[in-house]
């Protein structure tokens, strides 16, 4: 298991060091600094073995988190734990920065003591942790034993992510369907790979221990219902259903029930959390198409023309559109003409950045640029990185639709109808690239 956990700043100074196992010594702290943080080469692997000691690291802005072990640990678990550690810290004190870590080092030690015992990760749900790790001592030293045992049963219980006795005057929930479309297109407009990775994020402000059931236009579910129910409706909705390649769920979802009936039922954590993640590859709506045209005029000039076309309902508006056209390293000057938005050559980023605030569906826009090059004797050809794009659209490119989210709380006197529900869809660009 994890033998020790260190946090370093960008210089390699130790901010936090917690050792769990006897086989990890102080020299391990230095070994990582010397071999990884101060290494001249780019990081070649997130797992490094130095003198029979394995180091796992992740970086958050300029902070390094490293887990150390001498055993054959579950590597995936260690990384998952490091991410979780970051989440917990963010939930407690915001951004992970040197200053914040120094300001909260006592708290971090307290957390590390709780969520990692002898190197074994323990319950690390922030909701539960915040009930007893407060930096104020256990809530009031005088508090009742009843309350303490409630805490412990929650930390160890089956529903470790929610405490009992939550009350809201207004029962309300928000669902965000957040998708990122990923695309790799050839210069000729052929889709090399495209997929949507989506997340359903829920903010729940519900009283008691509500039992929820979530439904979407999942092809498998709809086909199944179609078989038994009215064929007319099934035919209609069948068109709109989507094929989900794979999905993963927050630990509150009963996986065995999903496996057998494909229904998504759960008792949600309080506040914001990620209910599910999914991935689709079929029938994706690609909101934009990028058509590049690069021409080399002699050895010192490039002509670039890029057309973007929006491909969705004219009534919808895409926002925050940004097209990034890479330029060679030996670029000396660029002239840009664009019909819409603003375009600028950024020498430090070796790219022309073209920004458009808004664009309606079924429109097209164009940019052309002349790039002057310095003559070089560099034998190596310019690698021509792909043109990448960023945008935000108010629909789900995968076609996913939320059908229902039912809430049942039998003990308290509110019903599904009394819950105010909100839903929104946001499609963003993931890695949206067109080769040129």
């Amino acid at each position, binding site marked *: 298991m994890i033998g020790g956990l260190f946090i370093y700043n960008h210089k390699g100074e130790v901010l936090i060091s917690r050792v769990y196992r006897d086989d990890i010594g102080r020299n391990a702290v230095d070994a990582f600094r010397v071999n990884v943080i101060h290494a001249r080469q780019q990081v070649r692997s997130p797992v490094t073995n130095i003198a029979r000691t394995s180091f796992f690291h992740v970086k958050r802005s300029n902070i390094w988190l490293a887990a150390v072990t001498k055993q054959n640990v579950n590597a995936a678990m260690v990384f998952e734990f490091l991410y979780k550690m970051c989440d917990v810290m963010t939930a407690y004190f915001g951004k992970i920065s040197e200053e914040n870590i120094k300001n909260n080092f*006592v708290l971090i030690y307290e957390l590390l003591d709780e969520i990692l015992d002898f190197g074994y990760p323990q319950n690390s749900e922030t909701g539960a942790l*915040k009930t007893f790790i407060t930096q*104020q001592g256990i809530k009031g030293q005088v508090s009742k034993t009843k309350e303490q045992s409630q805490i412990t049963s929650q930390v*160890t*219980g089956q529903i470790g992510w929610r405490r009992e006795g939550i009350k809201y005057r207004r029962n309300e929930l928000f669902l965000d369907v957040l998708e990122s479309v990923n695309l*790799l297109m050839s210069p000729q407009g052929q889709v*090399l790979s495209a997929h949507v990775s989506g997340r359903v994020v829920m903010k729940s402000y519900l009283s008691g221990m509500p039992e929820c059931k979530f439904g979407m236009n999942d092809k498998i579910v709809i086909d199944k219902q179609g078989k038994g129910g009215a064929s007319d409706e099934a035919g209609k909705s069948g068109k709109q259903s989507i094929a989900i390649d794979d999905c993963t769920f927050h630990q509150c979802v009963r996986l065995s029930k999903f496996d057998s009936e494909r229904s998504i039922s759960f008792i949600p954590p309080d506040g914001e959390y990620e209910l599910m993640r999914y991935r689709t590859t079929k029938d994706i709506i690609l909101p934009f198409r990028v058509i590049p045209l690069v021409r080399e005029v002699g050895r010192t000039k490039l002509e670039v023309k890029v057309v973007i076309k929006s491909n969705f309902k004219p009534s919808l508006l895409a926002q925050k559109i940004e097209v990034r056209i890479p330029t060679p390293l030996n670029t000396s000057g660029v002239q840009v003409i664009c019909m819409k938005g603003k375009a600028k050559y950024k020498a430090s980023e070796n790219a022309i950045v073209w920004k458009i605030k808004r664009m309606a569906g079924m429109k097209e826009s164009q940019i052309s640029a002349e790039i002057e090059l310095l003559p070089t004797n560099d034998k190596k050809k310019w690698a021509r990185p792909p043109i990448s794009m960023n945008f935000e659209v108010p629909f789900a490119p995968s076609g996913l639709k939320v059908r229902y989210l039912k809430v049942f709380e039998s003990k308290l006197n509110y019903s599904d109808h009394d819950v105010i529900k909100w839903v929104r869809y946001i499609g963003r660009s993931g890695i949206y690239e067109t*080769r040129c």
Partner: protein
Amino acid sequence: MKWEGTKAITAPTTPVTENRQFGSKMTDSKYFTTTKKGEIFELKAELNSDKKEKKKEAVKKVIASMTVGKDVSALFPDVVNCMQTDNLELKKLVYLYLMNYAKSQPDMAIMAVNTFVKDCEDPNPLIRALAVRTMGCIRVDKITEYLCEPLRKCLKDEDPYVRKTAAVCVAKLHDINAQLVEDQGFLDTLKDLISDSNPMVVANAVAALSEIAESHPNSNLLDLNPQTINKLLTALNECTEWGQIFILDCLANYTPRDDRESQSICERVTPRLSHANSAVVLSAVKVLMKFMEMLPKDLDYYGTLLKKLAPPLVTLLSAEPELQYVALRNINLIVQRRPEILKHEMKVFFVKYNDPIYVKLEKLDIMIRLASQANIAQVLAELKEYATEVDVDFVRKAVRAIGRCAIKVEQSAERCVSTLLDLIQTKVNYVVQEAIVVIKDIFRKYPNKYESVIATLCENLDSLDEPEARAAMIWIVGEYAERIDNADELLESFLEGFHDESTQVQLQLLTAIVKLFLKKPTETQELVQQVLSLATQDSDNPDLRDRGYIYWRLLSTDPVAAKEVVLAEKPLISEETDLIEPTLLEELICHIGTLASVYHKPPSAFVEGSRGVQHKRLPGSAGSGESVDSPDTGSAAGVSEAPPAVIPSQGDLLGDLLNLDLTPPTATGPPPAPSSGMQMGAMDLLGGGLDSLMGDESEPPPIPLRTDTPQSPQLSHQSPSPPDYSPTELGGDLGGSPAMGAGFGAPAAAMPATFSAPVSGGLDDLFDLGGGVGMPMGAYSPPKTVWLPAMKAKGLEISGTFARRAGVIQMEMTLTNKAMSVMTDFAIQFNRNSFGLAPAGPLQVLTPLSPNQSIEVALPLSTVGPVMKMEPLSNLQVAVKNNIDVFYFSCQYPISMLFVEDGKMERQVFLATWKDIPNDNESQFQIKDCHLSSDAASSKLQGSNVFTIAKRTVEGQDMLYQSMKLTNGIWVLAELRVQAGNPNYTVSLKCRAPEVSQCVFQSYEAMLKN
């Protein structure tokens, strides 16, 4: 239901559970800044202050100094004094300090014990747990004694939070003092916790037990049986994500009793594949990959399971890059073990521009593994893109990958070659060199096809500065010397700096010039003289010297033979490269998700001490898994499996020593599935090594191997002759004794494994090839019959027979490839059978089997395998695997194979036994049409270990009394009546196990009539 449409809304950020107060906390960073000299003194004063706040501040400063690495151990007593407080925050800080320094101040650490013991009684469960958790972290022997009582109480605490903490504490205590834990009976308490009502307690107990069990490989600590498994599976649904990982990792160590149990566990584990935590997913994949081995392939569920595995594996690729890396390393293993799972998922492994380099390199590896005729066009287009990227390592790998595609998918070879030529035109130094290395491999795979490009290659001769590329180029020049007009000039130019070259290049240059000489003897005599003397006289490298001498001698004795040897046709190289050796792969599959699977090394290679030394293995397929999983053989298996981890590296070393060829891994085909690494070493030594030594001649010549003894430099005219052993003697002495045979299966035999295995495996083969003798006593062996027709086995035909040669039972087979593609990776396995026959070594098929090629294999058998009565008794069910599939057939062996050499009974004993066996057990048979005299029959039978003990003649009828003993110790007594002039014999058989009589009779008939 009212849906409020799709308008954008922002949720209020209600700080519901936010009860932390910032305020004073914002100043904690100041503790890091103190660097004054009198610091310790000041701190001491503050620690002893009366004011609580000041105390706390002081402890914080101490902890901050500790973090930065300053030694604050001098403050030990002062800090410990602060322990008696009801401020929990302060208490935790003091505990943190204690854990760090207790070891250096053991005597003073005792001061803390009282507080711990008191805290363990506290009404607040959080305080009880904190005390027991911290106490376990104080690694001072004296403290552990005081720890026992509180720990015992906490293990039975009413609060689950305390119990789950106590469970981990047992593991801590075990780490400090294992004996104490056993003596105090904590292990049993821990086992009881597996049945606890709280899932998290179960999970922690499982984690603790698994870890303790790891350091006691032979203990039956984690007594996994269907009941406990059921409990674990129930807890799996309810515990935290981390708990699920502990439980799944533990489940993976279990071996189900049969395929039904295996399936039911799989069914309960598959829902975990949808968990958001990648580690849960990977651990579930591990359990499924392992248990799948036990499922029959024709089962519907087997196919369903395969389909279910792909999507979650693909989803792992959308995780954070570090996890992607772990996932990709694992997918690399999974793809090698079960290529079918991801064969349609090529696209997800395409490299993204922004992927970190470690992800890019791994994706590339998997792309090559998944490349097939169906997707090759796409793959090549991608690879071409990658070859223009910036990262040197990545570009090199991409170029190499293009070559691997050419070798793997024949249809694409032409396109690959032209792509490579394009790349060479870029003149980017490392691209050119990499391309030349792979083109050499393409030449070897497709001889006489792409040689037209040689001219282009030669243009780049000067830019090659890496040994591998130079060696590759030299090989090409030597190999195609007859087509390159100025080959001699080219090679001569290399010769100038001969001593500055690396060994790889030197060896290659030597071989290339000898090739050139054999092709164009007239104009290159001087050159060859020069290189031979450089290699033999001026070099310190024994490999180079020896190769030089061998060439020299060959050339001077028999140039024709030299030509045959040096210019022999080379075996084709195999298409799959860089495969992980199968035993290692199996072990790594059992370690999916862990560091071992990331490093692609067994845990023993990077873990110190006793942990992880135990090798894991996949369970056998349905029906043959018995020998692996029964707990009592567990320890034995552990011992017998230990060597492979060490020996392969040695094998590689030997391979390197002898593999004088420049050939990178691509050029020699991977050895066929050896089940133990030792054999691999032996094979390299005897097969591959010599192969390449002799210029890739396909048959290992029978000369003794002496890599370390330089021979006399004069040109002797006598060719080295093999030592004067008769092959049979050697075979009998070394490979033949029954004890040796048993040594394979039963590691209890005190035979040094390193010795016995290569001898029986390698030498036997060698001698069989050389002589084919080995029937000194003329044991009967039936003619070969077709066991597995090609139609049933996708083109693989197996015919075979059994023979007993020098006391070793052998299965002699002819494997014929009647398919269109090359077959590799042969392996064999037997089902349980009546006499426990089992392969004593792996199936030795050294070279890939090309289409229409046949190969003779002799597989030595042992009789210590698992036993199950078959119907008929001598039925043997066999599974043969190759790169294409697994095939099953059954055959019957003559029982005379099992007659052992010491089957001669004393006369007296014979008489007594004959009488002793009840008459019911006697059976009589007629052998018709046999024209042998009784003496001839007797000697013939003797050859097969049927011993005549007495002979009696009554009224012109010869009565032969004979005895034989089976490998399992069963005696069979026989009376053979032969009447002169009557071709019909009568056999009466008496045996305590009358079932065998029928078989023995059949053997009699076969032996006599043969």
